[in-house]
């Protein structure tokens, strides 16, 4: 029941995102859709024009609702048209080749940062009152207020450029023949190290502060006191009672912060010329590649919605209170 409710909610947001994508070009000053179409007439191949039509859902003289339905139908079938930037590759092809890189980047960065940040949060809450433990959250508050891309630039400059320890662009070495062998994997990890590190550094603070605050709240709960009164070993109180319960809000914030992480990843990819979806979005925007741009936005939203939905299901397993 709970899962169904969440599914309906996310579907409704998905619909809202598609509608937004449809309406945006029309709501912009001067109606970007028709303006771009007019500019494109005669300059573009019929194929490109067709792509634009699909992207905007403009089919010359159809009524708006008709255009809207056609747009919905095309989008649901994954028909996004042809990309200008990567002409004549279809948009869906571009997304298929870039999305895995981004998922890899965000996935590993988020897991690393979640584990380290949460661990540090537990430490700093448990050792509260000591100088180091009290200084850590302040330090990370400051780091978290630095721009993602600038941390990326700084890492790139120091570790990649000055020290030459890491490559400064791309996802794997050109000399590598693409294939699934150890060397390629090594090269991929080597190239991903800096982008992942910059994402981890800037998002760590949020996890840490969250966990610290949750744990401090949980530690003052009566059930912790009772667990101690029961004479349970301290290790058991810490894991089964305190940490376990303090993790629950962390999972919620995990879902809520995905949007920020995605934003950070987009910029980081651009800094490192990392061939993910964020870099493709940047290419699309700078080349006025509207079909690609709109499709990428929709894919990002969809990915975030699916992730949120999965997290909701996980959460309802861990906290029996939500499903009621």
């Amino acid at each position, binding site marked *: 029941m709970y899962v169904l409710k969440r599914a309906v909610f996310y579907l409704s947001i998905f619909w809202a995102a598609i509608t937004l994508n449809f309406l945006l070009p029309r709501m912009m000053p001067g109606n970007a859709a028709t303006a771009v179409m007019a500019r494109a007439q005669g300059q573009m191949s019929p194929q490109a024009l067709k792509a634009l039509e699909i992207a905007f859902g403009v089919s010359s003289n159809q009524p708006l609702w008709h255009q809207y339905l056609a747009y919905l139908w095309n989008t649901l079938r994954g028909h996004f048209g042809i990309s200008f930037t990567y002409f004549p590759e279809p948009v869906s092809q571009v997304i298929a080749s870039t999305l895995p890189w981004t998922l890899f980047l965000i996935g590993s960065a988020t897991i690393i940062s979640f584990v380290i940040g949460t661990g540090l949060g537990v430490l700093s809450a448990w050792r509260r009152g000591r100088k180091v433990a009290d200084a850590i959250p302040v330090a990370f508050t400051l780091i978290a207020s630095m721009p993602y891309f600038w941390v990326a630039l700084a890492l790139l400059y120091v570790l990649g450029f000055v020290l030459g320890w890491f490559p400064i662009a791309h996802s794997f070495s050109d000399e590598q023949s693409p294939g699934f062998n150890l060397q390629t994997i090594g090269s991929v990890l080597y190239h991903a190290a800096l982008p992942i590190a910059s994402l981890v550094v800037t998002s760590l603070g949020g996890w840490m502060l969250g966990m610290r605050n949750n744990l401090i709240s949980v530690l003052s709960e009566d059930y912790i006191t009772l667990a101690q009164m029961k004479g349970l070993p301290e290790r058991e109180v810490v894991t089964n009672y305190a940490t376990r319960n303090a993790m629950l809000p962390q999972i919620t914030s995990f879902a809520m912060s995905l949007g920020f992480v995605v934003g950070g990843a987009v910029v980081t990819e651009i800094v490192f010329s990392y061939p993910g979806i964020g870099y493709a979005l940047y290419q699309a925007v700078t080349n006025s590649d509207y079909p690609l741009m709109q499709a990428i*936005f929709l894919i990002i939203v969809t990915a975030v919605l699916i992730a949120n939905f999965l997290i909701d299901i996980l959460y309802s397993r861990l906290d029996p209170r939500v499903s009621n």
Partner: protein
Amino acid sequence: MEYHADSDVSLASRPPKGSAKKKTKNVRLLALFGNAKAVIGLVVIAIFVLGAIFAPLIAHDNPNAEVYMLNQPPSSAHLLGTNGLGQDVFSQLVYGSRVSMEVAFSAGAIATTISLLVGVTSGYLRGFADNVLSWITNVFLVVPSLPLVIVLSSYMHYRSEWPIILVIALTSWAWGARSLRAQTLSLRERDYVLHARLSGQSWWQVVLGEILPNIASLVLSGLLFSMINALLTEASLAFLGLGNINSISWGSMLYWAQNNEALINGLWWWFIPPGVAIAVFGGALALLNFSLDEITNPRLRKRKVRVHEQ
């Protein structure tokens, strides 16, 4: 979502209880001046604001003039050297603070106003209006804002900062609205609010007189959060060349530095200072927010009498 929203209240802010409500609130906000972190934050913010206002007195070079020797390292003539276009980096940094801070303050204020209107209305009216407003809030909460801003920016051609300010504000109000709604929902059922409602006060009297004073610290915290977000988003957009690249801001300085390959050429004085400026100003806002949380959330304050056996 309902359950999550409520569980947040205990962390975000715990309103004072019962009778002493308004007085303690004011005392608490004043307590900021007794908190070292808050004072440091306030002083840094004040320095930056003064620097922006009195920019011509601090930086004597025209930030736009491309008249100096290219790529000079810091010297007494150019405190932070010159860039690849022959401009004085220090002047750019000082004048650039104007745009960056204009965006941070305006977008922060607008986002906070929207979240206040939506959050309080939604929490106070409940029912159908709440369902609709909550749904909208959740949509904006889940849709990643930076990609949305990037898409929006691509349709616009900026001649001033205002489109950017509006776009940032429109995509960042949802967090605040969510916590304000949860807080209003719980305040609504407090005895003194019930009393005010039953004694025949109109809804706006109740909201202004009873609700607002008790969410003041939450609103302030939301404002600081939105300002940091606006500062960073503007910098990101400008860096990507999606802002108004003709005006000088910390973000656009980084854009030009990146475009002229300052990094590869080792011109650290071109891209380090704007980043540090963003980090320090953002850090000051964050520090203020951090101490605000310490002051209003009793559980985060110094360890009190609590069970700690074993």
